[in-house]
Protein backbone atom coordinates (compact mmCIF):
# COMPACT_ATOMS: atom_id res chain seq x y z
CA UNK A 1 0.00 0.00 0.00
CA UNK A 2 3.01 2.31 -0.30
CA UNK A 3 1.50 3.51 -3.53
CA UNK A 4 -1.27 5.54 -1.88
CA UNK A 5 0.93 8.27 -0.34
CA UNK A 6 3.03 8.32 -3.52
CA UNK A 7 -0.05 8.93 -5.66
CA UNK A 8 -1.33 11.56 -3.25
CA UNK A 9 1.97 13.41 -3.41
CA UNK A 10 1.89 13.23 -7.16
CA UNK A 11 -1.63 14.66 -7.33
CA UNK A 12 -0.76 17.48 -4.90
CA UNK A 13 2.38 18.35 -6.86
CA UNK A 14 0.34 18.57 -10.06
CA UNK A 15 -2.35 20.72 -8.47
CA UNK A 16 0.28 23.00 -6.97
CA UNK A 17 2.00 23.43 -10.33
CA UNK A 18 -1.22 24.06 -12.22
CA UNK A 19 -2.96 26.46 -9.86
CA UNK A 20 -0.23 28.34 -8.04
CA UNK A 21 0.42 31.36 -10.27
CA UNK A 22 2.62 33.91 -8.55
CA UNK A 23 3.59 37.11 -10.32
CA UNK A 24 2.27 38.47 -13.57
CA UNK A 25 1.54 36.36 -16.61
CA UNK A 26 3.33 36.65 -19.87
CA UNK A 27 0.77 37.48 -22.49
CA UNK A 28 3.00 38.67 -25.29
CA UNK A 29 2.56 41.70 -27.43
CA UNK A 30 -0.94 42.33 -28.65
CA UNK A 31 -1.18 41.71 -32.36
CA UNK A 32 -1.99 45.06 -33.90
CA UNK A 33 -3.07 45.98 -37.35
CA UNK A 34 0.31 47.52 -37.98
CA UNK A 35 1.96 44.29 -36.92
CA UNK A 36 -0.27 42.33 -39.25
CA UNK A 37 0.49 44.67 -42.13
CA UNK A 38 4.19 44.41 -41.37
CA UNK A 39 3.92 40.63 -41.77
CA UNK A 40 2.21 41.19 -45.09
CA UNK A 41 4.91 43.63 -46.13
CA UNK A 42 7.59 41.04 -45.27
CA UNK A 43 5.84 38.51 -47.50
CA UNK A 44 5.69 41.01 -50.37
CA UNK A 45 9.35 41.83 -49.82
CA UNK A 46 10.22 38.14 -49.97
CA UNK A 47 8.32 37.88 -53.23
CA UNK A 48 10.14 40.88 -54.62
CA UNK A 49 13.53 39.46 -53.70
CA UNK A 50 12.46 36.19 -55.17
CA UNK A 51 11.38 37.78 -58.41
CA UNK A 52 14.65 39.67 -58.66
CA UNK A 53 16.59 36.50 -58.14
CA UNK A 54 14.63 34.50 -60.65
CA UNK A 55 15.04 37.27 -63.16
CA UNK A 56 18.79 37.19 -62.60
CA UNK A 57 18.77 33.41 -62.98
CA UNK A 58 17.14 33.78 -66.39
CA UNK A 59 13.67 32.44 -65.72
CA UNK A 60 11.64 35.61 -66.22
CA UNK A 61 11.77 37.63 -69.44
CA UNK A 62 12.40 41.38 -69.28
CA UNK A 63 8.84 42.49 -70.08
CA UNK A 64 7.25 40.22 -67.46
CA UNK A 65 9.86 41.22 -64.94
CA UNK A 66 9.08 44.90 -65.30
CA UNK A 67 5.32 44.44 -64.95
CA UNK A 68 5.50 41.93 -62.07
CA UNK A 69 8.04 44.03 -60.22
CA UNK A 70 5.96 47.13 -60.67
CA UNK A 71 2.79 45.49 -59.33
CA UNK A 72 4.65 44.03 -56.34
CA UNK A 73 6.20 47.40 -55.57
CA UNK A 74 2.75 48.97 -55.70
CA UNK A 75 1.55 46.40 -53.21
CA UNK A 76 4.52 47.05 -50.94
CA UNK A 77 4.04 50.80 -51.23
CA UNK A 78 0.36 50.56 -50.24
CA UNK A 79 1.28 48.51 -47.21
CA UNK A 80 4.17 50.80 -46.25
CA UNK A 81 1.92 53.84 -46.52
CA UNK A 82 -0.70 52.29 -44.26
CA UNK A 83 1.91 51.14 -41.75
CA UNK A 84 3.43 54.61 -41.54
CA UNK A 85 -0.04 56.14 -41.17
CA UNK A 86 -0.92 53.76 -38.32
CA UNK A 87 2.41 54.35 -36.62
CA UNK A 88 2.00 58.10 -36.74
CA UNK A 89 -1.53 57.75 -35.30
CA UNK A 90 -0.84 55.48 -32.35
CA UNK A 91 2.82 55.11 -31.54
CA UNK A 92 1.98 53.37 -28.24
CA UNK A 93 -0.01 50.54 -29.78
CA UNK A 94 3.00 48.31 -30.28
CA UNK A 95 3.97 48.32 -26.63
CA UNK A 96 4.06 44.75 -25.33
CA UNK A 97 1.47 43.86 -22.75
CA UNK A 98 3.01 42.07 -19.76
Amino acid at each position, binding site marked *: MTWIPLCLMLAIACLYYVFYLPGRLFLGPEKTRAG*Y*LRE*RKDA*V*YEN*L*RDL*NFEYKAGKVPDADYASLKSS*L*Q*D*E*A*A*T*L*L*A*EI*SRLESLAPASRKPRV
Partner: protein
Amino acid sequence: MKNPISKTMPGKGSGRFTQIILLCAVVFLMLGAGDPATRFNEIGHQMMCICGCNQILLECNHVGCPASDGMRNELMASVERGDSDSLVEQGFVQKYGPTVLAAPTNKGFDRAAYVIPFAALFFGFGLIVLVIRAWKNRPTPAIADGLRPVRGAELEQFRDQARKETDL
Protein backbone atom coordinates in the same frame (compact mmCIF):
# COMPACT_ATOMS: atom_id res chain seq x y z
CA MET B 1 -11.72 -8.85 -91.02
CA LYS B 2 -10.69 -5.52 -92.36
CA ASN B 3 -7.28 -4.19 -91.72
CA PRO B 4 -7.80 -1.16 -89.46
CA ILE B 5 -4.88 0.64 -91.02
CA SER B 6 -6.54 0.62 -94.44
CA LYS B 7 -9.35 2.72 -92.98
CA THR B 8 -7.05 5.56 -92.17
CA MET B 9 -7.95 8.74 -93.99
CA PRO B 10 -5.25 10.21 -96.21
CA GLY B 11 -3.49 13.07 -94.55
CA LYS B 12 -3.95 11.77 -91.03
CA GLY B 13 -0.27 11.06 -90.62
CA SER B 14 -0.19 11.26 -86.87
CA GLY B 15 -3.04 8.74 -86.53
CA ARG B 16 -1.24 6.25 -88.73
CA PHE B 17 1.95 6.82 -86.80
CA THR B 18 0.19 6.03 -83.52
CA GLN B 19 -1.28 2.87 -85.00
CA ILE B 20 2.10 1.68 -86.21
CA ILE B 21 3.56 2.32 -82.78
CA LEU B 22 0.68 0.44 -81.16
CA LEU B 23 1.07 -2.45 -83.58
CA CYS B 24 4.81 -2.63 -82.88
CA ALA B 25 4.13 -2.54 -79.18
CA VAL B 26 1.62 -5.38 -79.43
CA VAL B 27 3.98 -7.47 -81.57
CA PHE B 28 6.84 -6.93 -79.13
CA LEU B 29 4.66 -7.67 -76.14
CA MET B 30 3.72 -10.98 -77.68
CA LEU B 31 7.38 -11.94 -78.08
CA GLY B 32 8.61 -14.27 -75.42
CA ALA B 33 5.13 -14.79 -74.03
CA GLY B 34 5.01 -18.41 -75.16
CA ASP B 35 7.86 -19.74 -73.05
CA PRO B 36 6.34 -21.94 -70.26
CA ALA B 37 8.85 -20.84 -67.61
CA THR B 38 8.12 -17.15 -68.34
CA ARG B 39 4.38 -17.80 -68.30
CA PHE B 40 4.64 -19.73 -65.03
CA ASN B 41 6.55 -16.83 -63.54
CA GLU B 42 4.10 -14.26 -64.85
CA ILE B 43 0.91 -16.01 -63.83
CA GLY B 44 2.44 -17.11 -60.53
CA HIS B 45 3.06 -13.47 -59.68
CA GLN B 46 -0.61 -12.66 -60.33
CA MET B 47 -1.81 -15.12 -57.70
CA MET B 48 -1.75 -15.28 -53.94
CA CYS B 49 -0.81 -18.14 -51.69
CA ILE B 50 -4.03 -19.07 -49.91
CA CYS B 51 -2.53 -20.34 -46.65
CA GLY B 52 -3.12 -16.97 -44.99
CA CYS B 53 0.40 -15.65 -45.30
CA ASN B 54 -0.83 -12.87 -47.62
CA GLN B 55 2.07 -13.40 -49.99
CA ILE B 56 2.25 -13.64 -53.75
CA LEU B 57 2.21 -17.34 -54.69
CA LEU B 58 5.75 -17.41 -56.04
CA GLU B 59 7.04 -15.34 -53.14
CA CYS B 60 5.57 -17.50 -50.40
CA ASN B 61 8.69 -18.61 -48.58
CA HIS B 62 7.85 -20.80 -45.66
CA VAL B 63 8.85 -24.39 -45.90
CA GLY B 64 6.02 -26.73 -45.12
CA CYS B 65 3.39 -24.26 -46.35
CA PRO B 66 0.23 -26.37 -46.67
CA ALA B 67 -0.85 -24.60 -49.84
CA SER B 68 1.85 -23.09 -51.99
CA ASP B 69 3.63 -26.26 -53.19
CA GLY B 70 0.42 -27.86 -54.43
CA MET B 71 -0.66 -24.64 -56.08
CA ARG B 72 2.65 -24.21 -57.85
CA ASN B 73 2.52 -27.76 -59.18
CA GLU B 74 -1.02 -27.19 -60.41
CA LEU B 75 0.03 -23.99 -62.10
CA MET B 76 3.01 -25.65 -63.75
CA ALA B 77 0.79 -28.49 -65.01
CA SER B 78 -1.75 -26.05 -66.50
CA VAL B 79 0.95 -24.01 -68.18
CA GLU B 80 2.61 -27.08 -69.61
CA ARG B 81 -0.76 -28.30 -70.89
CA GLY B 82 -0.89 -25.06 -72.85
CA ASP B 83 -3.97 -23.59 -71.13
CA SER B 84 -4.53 -19.93 -71.86
CA ASP B 85 -3.91 -17.39 -69.07
CA SER B 86 -7.60 -16.81 -68.54
CA LEU B 87 -8.32 -20.55 -68.41
CA VAL B 88 -5.63 -21.07 -65.78
CA GLU B 89 -6.97 -18.19 -63.74
CA GLN B 90 -10.55 -19.41 -64.05
CA GLY B 91 -9.50 -22.84 -62.83
CA PHE B 92 -7.81 -21.32 -59.78
CA VAL B 93 -10.73 -19.02 -59.01
CA GLN B 94 -13.15 -21.95 -59.17
CA LYS B 95 -11.01 -24.00 -56.86
CA TYR B 96 -9.79 -21.39 -54.34
CA GLY B 97 -12.26 -18.52 -54.67
CA PRO B 98 -11.72 -15.04 -56.15
CA THR B 99 -9.23 -13.96 -53.47
CA VAL B 100 -6.62 -16.22 -55.09
CA LEU B 101 -6.06 -13.56 -57.73
CA ALA B 102 -3.58 -10.95 -56.48
CA ALA B 103 -5.44 -8.07 -58.12
CA PRO B 104 -9.01 -7.40 -59.22
CA THR B 105 -9.86 -8.71 -62.69
CA ASN B 106 -10.97 -6.66 -65.66
CA LYS B 107 -14.52 -7.92 -65.53
CA GLY B 108 -17.70 -6.64 -63.93
CA PHE B 109 -17.45 -4.59 -60.79
CA ASP B 110 -13.75 -5.46 -60.43
CA ARG B 111 -13.06 -3.15 -63.32
CA ALA B 112 -14.07 -0.22 -61.10
CA ALA B 113 -10.87 -0.80 -59.14
CA TYR B 114 -8.89 0.39 -62.16
CA VAL B 115 -11.34 2.79 -63.71
CA ILE B 116 -11.97 4.94 -60.64
CA PRO B 117 -8.37 6.09 -59.98
CA PHE B 118 -7.80 7.02 -63.61
CA ALA B 119 -11.21 8.66 -63.84
CA ALA B 120 -10.25 10.64 -60.74
CA LEU B 121 -6.97 11.60 -62.41
CA PHE B 122 -8.69 12.97 -65.50
CA PHE B 123 -11.41 14.60 -63.47
CA GLY B 124 -8.84 16.22 -61.19
CA PHE B 125 -6.77 17.32 -64.14
CA GLY B 126 -9.77 18.96 -65.78
CA LEU B 127 -10.77 20.55 -62.52
CA ILE B 128 -7.34 22.08 -62.02
CA VAL B 129 -7.27 23.46 -65.54
CA LEU B 130 -10.65 25.08 -64.87
CA VAL B 131 -9.48 26.39 -61.50
CA ILE B 132 -6.32 27.87 -62.99
CA ARG B 133 -8.31 29.59 -65.71
CA ALA B 134 -10.81 30.93 -63.25
CA TRP B 135 -8.07 32.23 -60.97
CA LYS B 136 -6.31 33.85 -63.84
CA ASN B 137 -9.40 35.75 -64.85
CA ARG B 138 -10.56 36.85 -61.44
CA PRO B 139 -10.14 40.48 -60.41
CA THR B 140 -7.18 41.33 -58.21
CA PRO B 141 -8.40 41.06 -54.61
CA ALA B 142 -7.61 43.75 -52.06
CA ILE B 143 -4.31 43.27 -50.25
CA ALA B 144 -5.99 43.77 -46.88
CA ASP B 145 -9.23 45.31 -45.72
CA GLY B 146 -9.38 49.04 -45.33
CA LEU B 147 -6.29 49.95 -47.31
CA ARG B 148 -6.30 53.25 -49.12
CA PRO B 149 -4.72 53.39 -52.54
CA VAL B 150 -1.62 55.55 -52.54
CA ARG B 151 -0.92 57.97 -55.38
CA GLY B 152 1.54 60.49 -56.70
CA ALA B 153 4.66 61.45 -54.81
CA GLU B 154 3.75 59.31 -51.80
CA LEU B 155 3.49 56.24 -54.02
CA GLU B 156 6.84 56.97 -55.59
CA GLN B 157 8.44 57.51 -52.20
CA PHE B 158 7.22 54.16 -50.79
CA ARG B 159 7.94 52.30 -54.02
CA ASP B 160 11.45 53.60 -53.80
CA GLN B 161 11.69 52.48 -50.21
CA ALA B 162 10.49 48.99 -51.16
CA ARG B 163 12.95 48.84 -54.01
CA LYS B 164 15.86 49.86 -51.83
CA GLU B 165 14.96 47.48 -49.07
CA THR B 166 14.59 44.50 -51.35
CA ASP B 167 17.66 45.47 -53.33
CA LEU B 168 19.86 44.64 -50.38
